């Protein structure tokens, strides 16, 4: 016992930080903030530390060279003992980190924690969100595979649309005229030095602010924030009903952090590492690039916006969102904190969550992407061929050969870019079918020049057979009249 005290005293003189530790660990926090709702910030920090450790371990093997990066990942996956596990931890850690940062942000927003005097803590938090997403994107590039290669192309295409500054930005981002060695090297510098440096400094500032300003008290409906009185009230509250951060609140953070690490490890073991997909060879074009999970929603937005809206939305949208997030605490710096009295805040969160969730879900199916080999790989279901005339079967062949199947499904097989054609004859008359095929329209190319009259006849004959058994195909009622003026009655076969 005496020995320990001697050592501590000896250290205390030479390493005088015990006061700082005591001040940090022992500072009083409002009792009800020792809650399971308040663990996400520290969990994000825990995952970040995991990312640093696994990231450094990956750097032992990884080669940041366009010619070798992909091979070094294969070696990590297959030849290095547990290399796959470290890759998987880092990859899943990244997804978890983005998710936890987002949850943390939602919690802070709903609990009104961004209000006076914590406005700048919120702004630094927004910066942290941006650099976290930056880490996720640059990390995806370092997994230098086909998806990364074409993902960079997508990033460059988006950036190039900025007026005037766009093209030089693209050259700066790629480090040259094309995606190549220089591109990977600068993304390596970004992912390993620049962005983590920013991330660490922002985390330090963020934590200092949380420490000095105190953890946001549990919001009570009716307890309104006023700049004149808030700080005094807060100190009274912590004095009256406070607990020291250690051990009062910290044990929940510890348990949750450990639980998250276990969850990441479980995902890593069960699902394994992400890719790498095919080698980054731009002459292999049999590929359908997909972004990583957290950018899927953006992928959906890019395909669903009408073409004319796209560039403005891409350039102005992020500015508006960012400005909104940064201005939020300065505009709504006072007032109610409780979500029970802030219906618009709750609705905003619900709407954003539903929108992002729907877009992500959609992007997983990517119905807007043609199925590039449907025309050659997927058969026409037999019920569409039975009891058909030679002409109609000829039409089915045209349907396959002209890649219609890549965009249109039959019996749920094939592309979903255009509508399913199982019952198209009920919707469209023969004339309308011809018009659609020859002239295209909507998002369909015009086939006029690429179909001979015989092919068109056969194709439309086949399309005409696409209706449910009990339902007759659509007819133009005036057509019979025009062709046969004697018979004034409507055609008997009209459904």
């Amino acid at each position: 016992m005496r020995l320990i005290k001697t050592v501590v005293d000896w250290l205390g003189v030479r390493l005088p930080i015990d006061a700082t530790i005591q001040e940090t660990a022992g500072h009083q926090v409002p009792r009800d903030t020792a809650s399971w709702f308040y663990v996400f910030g520290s969990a994000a920090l825990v995952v970040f530390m995991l990312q640093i450790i696994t990231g450094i371990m990956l750097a032992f093997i990884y080669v940041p060279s366009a010619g070798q990066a992909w091979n070094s990942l294969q070696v990590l996956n297959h030849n290095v003992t547990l290399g796959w596990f470290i890759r998987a931890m880092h990859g899943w850690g990244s997804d978890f980190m983005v998710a936890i940062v987002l949850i943390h942000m939602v919690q802070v927003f709903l609990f009104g924690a961004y209000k006076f005097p914590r406005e700048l803590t919120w702004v630094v938090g927004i910066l942290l969100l941006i650099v976290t997403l930056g880490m996720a994107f640059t990390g995806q590039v370092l997994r230098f595979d086909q998806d990364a290669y074409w993902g960079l192309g997508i990033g460059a295409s988006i950036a190039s649309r900025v007026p005037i500054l766009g093209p030089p930005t693209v050259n700066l981002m790629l480090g040259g005229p094309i995606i190549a060695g220089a591109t990977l090297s600068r993304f390596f510098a970004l992912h390993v030095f620049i962005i983590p440096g920013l991330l660490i400094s922002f985390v330090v500032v963020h934590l200092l602010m949380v420490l000095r300003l105190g953890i946001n008290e549990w919001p009570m409906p009716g307890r309104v924030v006023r700049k004149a009185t808030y700080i005094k009230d807060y100190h009274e509250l912590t004095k009256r009903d406070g607990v020291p951060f250690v051990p009062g609140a910290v044990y929940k953070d510890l348990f949750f952090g450990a639980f998250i690490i276990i969850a990441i490890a479980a995902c890593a073991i069960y699902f394994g590492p992400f890719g790498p997909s095919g080698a980054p060879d731009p002459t292999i074009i049999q590929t359908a690039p997909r972004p990583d999970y957290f950018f899927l929603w953006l992928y959906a937005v890019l395909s669903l916006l009408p073409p004319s809206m796209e560039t403005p939305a891409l350039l102005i949208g992020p500015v508006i969102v960012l400005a909104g997030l940064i201005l939020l605490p300065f505009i709504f710096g006072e007032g109610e904190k409780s979500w029970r009295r802030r219906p618009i805040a709750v609705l905003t969160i619900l709407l954003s969550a539903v929108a992002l969730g729907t877009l992500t879900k959609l992007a997983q199916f990517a119905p807007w992407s043609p199925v590039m080999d449907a025309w050659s790989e997927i058969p026409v279901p037999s019920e569409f061929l039975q009891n058909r005339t030679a002409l109609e079967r000829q039409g089915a062949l045209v349907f396959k050969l002209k890649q219609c199947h890549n965009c249109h499904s039959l019996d749920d097989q094939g592309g979903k870019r255009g509508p399913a054609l199982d019952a198209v004859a009920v919707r469209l008359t023969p004339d309308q079918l011809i018009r659609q095929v020859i002239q295209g329209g909507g998002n369909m190319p015009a086939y006029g020049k690429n179909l001979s009259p015989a092919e068109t006849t056969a194709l439309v004959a086949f399309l005409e057979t696409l209706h449910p058994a009990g339902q007759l195909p659509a007819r133009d009622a005036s057509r019979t009249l025009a062709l046969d003026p004697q018979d004034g009655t409507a055609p008997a076969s009209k459904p």
Partner: protein
Amino acid sequence: MTLPEGLSRRTLLVKLGIAFNAAIAAVLAVPIVRYLMSPVIHERKGGYDAWVSLGNLEQFPPGQTRFATYRNPVVNPWDGTTGDIACWVRNVDGKSFQVFAINCAHLGCPVRWFPQSSLFLCPCHGGAYYQDGSRASGPPERGLFEYGYKLESGRLFIKAEEMPTPGSACKSKNSDIVREIKPCA
């Protein structure tokens, strides 16, 4: 010596010191910024203006569109396969050609040629182009990017150096590096 005088002397020295450092930083910033901006300040290195061969003309029969690859004129030894670029060559009538970039004019994904329907289709968001590269349907705002080409001693050469993007192609509107099909919106 009175106290305020001494203070102001030291304050002056501090200010001078700061100014000295700022001046040095400003001077140092010039090479640093130039270094960082080197990909933008096109210091035309050898190779930038080179014509690249796509191979013998026999590979590109009249009336057909064929896949071709070339090694980018500006490469480093460690670029690996990323220095190999693909493109589509259309021999219109044996005399005139069109050489299309592989990159979709929407977001740069690799378009694929379907000779049966004479369409280029993009696997990402379903952009479609006709055989002459003009936009058929989908999200692209313009037709495929085209390279300038020349025929020499039975071979097809193109001028290719930069990955075409919607913005960069607009920039070089009047150059023959990436020829415009349609003016950008």
